[in-house]
Every structure is written in structure tokens, then in C-alpha cells.
């Protein structure tokens, strides 16, 4: 079936949309909307993890992998009518890195020359980005970075018109102007946002729908009811656990449920700096204690048990690696070897939204079976994050609800921010406080391998890194890889992967209405 053009659709979310500023927005609701409002030099092909040019017609990478030069597509226009030029690219990325913007994306651009000065607040521009001419922009990196193209495909690298940002006077997030597939037509705070097709979008035939309206503040259970009555086209929050089985079984919902893998792993971090988890044997023992199949059953089979850090869709995933099999007897033996025959008491932090406390209770019961008494601390997300990021505080953290969904489909994204030494700091996200200098060095080496020339080799290197980490040090208990579930009305067309896009969540550019 080929996409047809036209149609207005309604999407619902529970939470309000925080901002549409591409330098700031970083949650899975606004991610896809920002993606649709703005454009970037490079982008992924819809529904895939394949990178390709976007408003850059072509790009060049120097042999040492340190210089990237992009040729911009001429005639790409912001929706305020002005053409996008190279200086806009420079200004936009600098803006995303500038601490004054208070954006969460600054760290991604660390490899560009001058980024460190910018983030430290000692410089206002970055030497590593130059607008060679109106349609050429050049990036100079301080070291080779295999993920750099992925970084440029992130929302944070979107181009924004300086004059519009300044005109918005600090409120650009509510008055976004971009060069993407859609424009924001109306925003009624707390009620709805209306996105309208950008007729001047530089990719012809896209987007397909004339407009999409995002209604916020919609309770997921109610959204499903409305979906059933045809008032809603996409229930953005998916299907709450309470309704999942019923809908899955009901013929009425046939064809309305999209259920797909994403780049996600849910895990328990084991704090390698807290006794007795400072002992690798103990970490391996608890790894064997968890009955992942039963946990998956508790969430109605909406996930697959995980054996390793990387999710199956990620390059570098090691099909052959089996991890630690469920074996309480062996776990007990290992504990005894570690001198903890009688087990021990510890704590496990978890987010307090359903189903996380339930999953944690299942983990708790499994641990109890090998003599580990884990007290559950179910608290709000920010407090989980705070506890995890405080040295010596949280022995175990269940990541569900704050789980690691990759920013881009590259294995390094699963290392640096959550397992590398650089993030084992106060306020960091390495809640295992795992720091292995040798592995760190291997990771840096892998990231310096040029892509795509050595992509295969690089993936192998990463695969080895992750299996080594898990085999030797076991700082995590990878529990499962959760699938995403979205409910859509029957009139919505297109393959599943554009509703659960690995990099965009919902690909508003690609979805269409069946005629």
C-alpha cells in the first residue's frame, strides 16, 4: 500500500508537552514532535536505523576522521520564509551546547573542538564549527568519533533561525520555528497542539497528513476508550497493563495494536562501590537469582528476557551470548563462596509508577530465595535518579520507568553515559558506579574507528566489550528488553515501524491515513 496524502489526525498524551525547543526537548513525547518541526543535516530513514543525508546533500569525512564537511541543499527554507544557510547550522549547535540554553544535549557534542570551553561558559562560539560559505559547513573534532553522524541526527542538532529564537525572547519552546515537515499552528496550554503540514518542506511528497493534533492531559485508559469510539487516532501512551490482555485478545482491536521492539534494556544496577556488591561473585550470584521469565509474565509478556546490556536491535548485540542463566542453587553456592552463606540485607530503589513496584517485588522475592533481603524503596523518578547518582547510596536500582532507551542506534551510547568511568560521578547516570580503566580505553579505541569503513569491526569490538563487562564484572542484572506498544485507529496506514520508530518514537512525517 502506498501512502495517500491528506487527512487530519488526533494523537493523545497524558503529560503536557514541556517544550518544542530542539535544544531542550528530551522526552519521548516531544521528541517526535520536535523531530517533525525541525530538520537536521542528516537523518534516519523512516522506521530504520539507517543514516542518510537530509538537508545536507552530501558530506565528506577526512581520512583521520576528524573533519566533516557538509554541503547544504539549496533553497531549504525556514517556515518564516528565510533560507537555511551554513551560519544557521553553526549557531544552532552552539546554542544547544551553550549552558545558558540549559539543554540536556550539550554532552553529545563534546568531541567538537571548542565544546569544552563552551560548556565551561568561557566561550560564546565553537571554533570547531565553521560556515565555509552559505551552503558549506565544516566540523572539526578534537578526536575521531564514530558516532558523530548519529549525533548530528539528534534533535539537538536541528537548525533554528536565530531571529525567531531572539524574537521569542526566551520562549522559543512555545513558539518554535523550524524547517521541518510541520509547523506549529496552535498551542492551547494544557489542551492541544495543532501541527500543520509545511507546504514548503524540502522533501517532496512528505509529510502525508495535512495536520495532526496532539491532545494532552488524556488519561491512557480514557484515550483507549476514545480510540475505540473513533475520536482518537493514536493513543501515544500505549496500552496500560490493566487493559493490555483484554485488548490483545479482543477481535475488536485487531489491527489497532502496534507492538514492537525498541532500543531498550531494563536492568538492575549493582553498586560496585557498596558492600557486598563490591564483590563480583556477589553480583554474579544475584544475576543468577532472577527468574526473568516470571517477570516477563507479570508484565503480560510485553518484553523478552535480556541476557546482556545491549538490546537485540542494537549493532553489536551478541546473539550467542547467553549471560547468566536462572539458577538459584548456583547463586547460593556463589554467595557462600563470597562468604555470604546466610545472605545479606540490602535495598533496591525503583520508580513508583505501575508496573515498576510490581516488578521490583518479583525481583525481591527472587532475591529472598537465595537469602538476600532487599528492602524496596519506591519513590518518584527524580529521587531514584538522585539516589542512583549519589556515591555509596543505592545498592541496587531497578531502571524500569527510567530505562535506557538509546539516543541513537550505536552501542557506544550504552557505554559512556551509564557504564563509563566519566559518568561514575555525583549526579551521573552510572548507577553501578562501575569504572574499569581498561574497558574505558577499549571503548575509546572502538569509537575512534572510522565509520562506515570499519563499522563491522567496530561493532565486534563493542560486542566484546559488553560481554566482557557482563561476564567478568556483572555490574548489572539485565532483566528484559521491553517492547513498545501503541494503539492506533484502523484508518491509520503504514507499517508498524513508523509508529514505533527506533529513533523517532512516532514518525509523523511518514504516517498516513488510509483512504
Amino acid at each position: 500500500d502506498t501512502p495517500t496524502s491528506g487527512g487530519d489526525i488526533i494523537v493523545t498524551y497524558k503529560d503536557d508537552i514541556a517544550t518544542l525547543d530542539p535544544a531542550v526537548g528530551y522526552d519521548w513525547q516531544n521528541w517526535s514532535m520536535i523531530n517533525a518541526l525541525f530538520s537536521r543535516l542528516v537523518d534516519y530513514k523512516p522506521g530504520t536505523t539507517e543514516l542518510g543525508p537530509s538537508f545536507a546533500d552530501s558530506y565528506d569525512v577526512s581520512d583521520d576522521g576528524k573533519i566533516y564537511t557538509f554541503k547544504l541543499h539549496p533553497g531549504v527554507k525556514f517556515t518564516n520564509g528565510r533560507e537555511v544557510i551554513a551560519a544557521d547550522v553553526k549557531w544552532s549547535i552552539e546554542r544547544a551546547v551553550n549552558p545558558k540554553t540549559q539543554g540536556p544535549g550539550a554532552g553529545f557534542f563534546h568531541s567538537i573542538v571548542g565544546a569544552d570551553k563552551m560548556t565551561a561558559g568561557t566561550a560564546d562560539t565553537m571554533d570547531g564549527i565553521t560556515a565555509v560559505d552559505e551552503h558549506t559547513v565544516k566540523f572539526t573534532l578534537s578526536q575521531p568519533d564514530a558516532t558523530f553522524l548519529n549525533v548530528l541526527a539528534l534533535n539537538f542538532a536541528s537548525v533554528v533561525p536565530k531571529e525567531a529564537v531572539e524574537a521569542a525572547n526566551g520562549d522559543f519552546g512555545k513558539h518554535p520555528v523550524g524547517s521541518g515537515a510541520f509547523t506549529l499552528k496552535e498551542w492551547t496550554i494544557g489542551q492541544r497542539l495543532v501541527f500543520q503540514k509545511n507546504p514548503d518542506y524540502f522533501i517532496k511528497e512528505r509529510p502525508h497528513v495535512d495536520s495532526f493534533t496532539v491532545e494532552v492531559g488524556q488519561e491512557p485508559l480514557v484515550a483507549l476508550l476514545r480510540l475505540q469510539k473513533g475520536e482518537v487516532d493514536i493513543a501515544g501512551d500505549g496500552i496500560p497493563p490493566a487493559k493490555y490482555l483484554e485488548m490483545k485478545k479482543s477481535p475488536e482491536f485487531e489491527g489497532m495494536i502496534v507492538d514492537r521492539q525498541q532500543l531498550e534494556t531494563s536492568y538492575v544496577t549493582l553498586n560496585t562501590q557498596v558492600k557486598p556488591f563490591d564483590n563480583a561473585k556477589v553480583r554474579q550470584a544475584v544475576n543468577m537469582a532472577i527468574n526473568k521469565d516470571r517477570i516477563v509474565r507479570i508484565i503480560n509478556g510485553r518484553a523478552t528476557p535480556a541476557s546482556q546490556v545491549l538490546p537485540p536491535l542494537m549493532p553489536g548485540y551478541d546473539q550467542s551470548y547467553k549471560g547468566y542463566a536462572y539458577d538459584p542453587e548456583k547463586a547460593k553456592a556463589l554467595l557462600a563462596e563470597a562468604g555470604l552463606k546466610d545472605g545479606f540485607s540490602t535495598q533496591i530503589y525503583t520508580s513508583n509508577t505501575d508496573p515498576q513496584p510490581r516488578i521490583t517485588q518479583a525481583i525481591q522475592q527472587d532475591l529472598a530465595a537465595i537469602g538476600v533481603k532487599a528492602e524496596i524503596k519506591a519513590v518518584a523518578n527524580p529521587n531514584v535518579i538522585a539516589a542512583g547518582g549519589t556515591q555509596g547510596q543505592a545498592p541496587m536500582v531497578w531502571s524500569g520507568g527510567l530505562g535506557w532507551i538509546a539516543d541513537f542506534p550505536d552501542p557506544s551510547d550504552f557505554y559512556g553515559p551509564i557504564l563509563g568511568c566519566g559518568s561514575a560521578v555525583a549526579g551521573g547516570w552510572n548507577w553501578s558506579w562501575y569504572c574499569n580503566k581498561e574497558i574505558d580505553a577499549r571503548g575509546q579505541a572502538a569509537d575512534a574507528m572510522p565509520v562506515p569503513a570499519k563499522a563491522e569491526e567496530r561493532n565486534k569490538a563493542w560486542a566484546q566489550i559488553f560481554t566482557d563487562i557482563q561476564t567478568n564484572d556483572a555490574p548489572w542484572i539485565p532483566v528484559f528488553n521491553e517492547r513498545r506498544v501503541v494503539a492506533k485507529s484502523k484508518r491509520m496506514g503504514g507499517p508498524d515501524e513508523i509508529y514505533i520508530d527506533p529513533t523517532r518514537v512516532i514518525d509523523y512525517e511518514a504516517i498516513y491515513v488510509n483512504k
Partner: protein
Amino acid sequence: MRVLRELIRRPSALFGLIVVAIVLLAALFAPWIVHFSPDNQLTDGLSLEGAPLPPSGEHLFGTDTLGRDLFSRVLFGARTSLIIGLVANGVAVAIGLLVGLLAGYLRGTVGNLLMRFTDLMMAFPALLLAIALAALLKPSLWIVAMVIALVNWVQVARIVYTETRGLVERDFIVAERSLGAGNGRIIFLHILPHLMPTAIVWGTLGIATTVLLEATLSFLGIGVQPPQPSWGNIIFESQSYFQDAPWLVFIPGAIILATALSFNLIGDALRDILDPTQRGRL
């Protein structure tokens, strides 16, 4: 003794007494009554797809979303919830009575300060207090009981304040003062008894609301933590299942209702028995 006899004579109060007795006994003897540990996530407690099981001979009240026996959870939950509903709520009503009464009776600077403090507490969002306490303190049943007491006394104080203001104008209070009665005596012997109807209404209606409030607070991390059951958190955990697994919501709900109602029946009867102007006909 006379009071108890009169209570038993009233059918509704007797009914209340019986229900309360059953609930108390069940809470007390829970370990000897149930077949399953309340925390045991039974392997066969969920369907293959992971759905909870409806009530059956094996599981009287069915199982919850983790495959635990709901009957034993409800029984063990009674311990938590009774403490919340009776102690926390009782303390809240007591504090409210005391503050409202003092403020209404004393007037002047002290009364004014008390009332402004009450206003401050009332204007201050309870939820925020709860969240902050959750972050700062170790969650436990007693903490949540304390928070509920801290949060709930305010309304009682307000109402009692208004009533007391009316009472102190009455002649018999003036008469009492003329006899030389101290403030303590007037407050406790002459004003307090007149506030009993209000106290009973709040005390008994508060049972259900505080039991539910406990669940909210536990959810925010200051109350009992999983897997410890309470009536409130059994409902709260599964309230979105009210269609697909109604027993998870409506059974504990009905039990909360029955308990609160029973206490109320007793309270109403007590009020009538203790109120001399109502003596005479039943």
C-alpha cells in the same frame, strides 16, 4: 457497662460491633487464618498470560497482579489499615479538637496565633509536605500515620473553632466562669462534650478517607513499602484493573466501606447514648 448494654440493645450498633470485632480478630489472627503468605507470589497465582485469577475455592478473593493470594493480603492489610484508620485518624481528630477548641475558646493573641497557624497549615499543600517527608525520612507505617495526623487535623480544627466560638457565647459557659471554673475545666467538661457529634462524624468518616490517603502517601514513598499490604495500597496498586479484575478493587473497597460504616454505626449510637437530651425513646 451501661453504655455497652445500650449499644447491644440497638440492632444497628450491634451489627457495627460484630463487624468491627470480626475485622479486629481477623487482623489479629491473620497468620492462623490464611493458607498463603501475603507476600508469596505464587507460581500458579497468575494465568499463563500473567492475568490475576478471579475468586475461587482455592483463592477466596482471587489473586492480585503478582499472583499473591488476595484474601491473605486483605487480612494482613487490615493491620496496617486499622492503625491508619483508627490511630492516625484518631490523633488527627484529637489534635484538631484541641487546637480548634483552644483557638475558639482563648481568642486573643494565643487564639489568633493558633488559628493563623491552622490557616498556614491549611494553605500549605499536604501533598508537598508528604513528598518532602518521604524524601527526608525513612518510610514506615508510623511515619505515614504521623503525616496523616499532621495533615488531617487542620480541617477538624477549623470546624471545631467555629463551633467553639458559638458555644462560648452560650450562657452556661458564662455561668461556669462565674462559678470560678478554670479554663481547663470549662474546655474539657463543658465544651468538649458538645463537640462530640462533630468528633464522631469526622472520626468515623475519616476512617475511609485516611485509609485511602495512606495508599496515596505510600505511593509517594512515605508509607508502608511493598510488599507490605494495606487496604489502601491493594486498591491503589490495581485501581486501573477495576474492569478487568474487579475483585482487586471492589473487595477491599467493600471491606473499607463496611469497616468505616460499622464504626460509624457504633459512633452514632454512642452519641445518642451519651447525649442526655436524646435519652428516652430509642
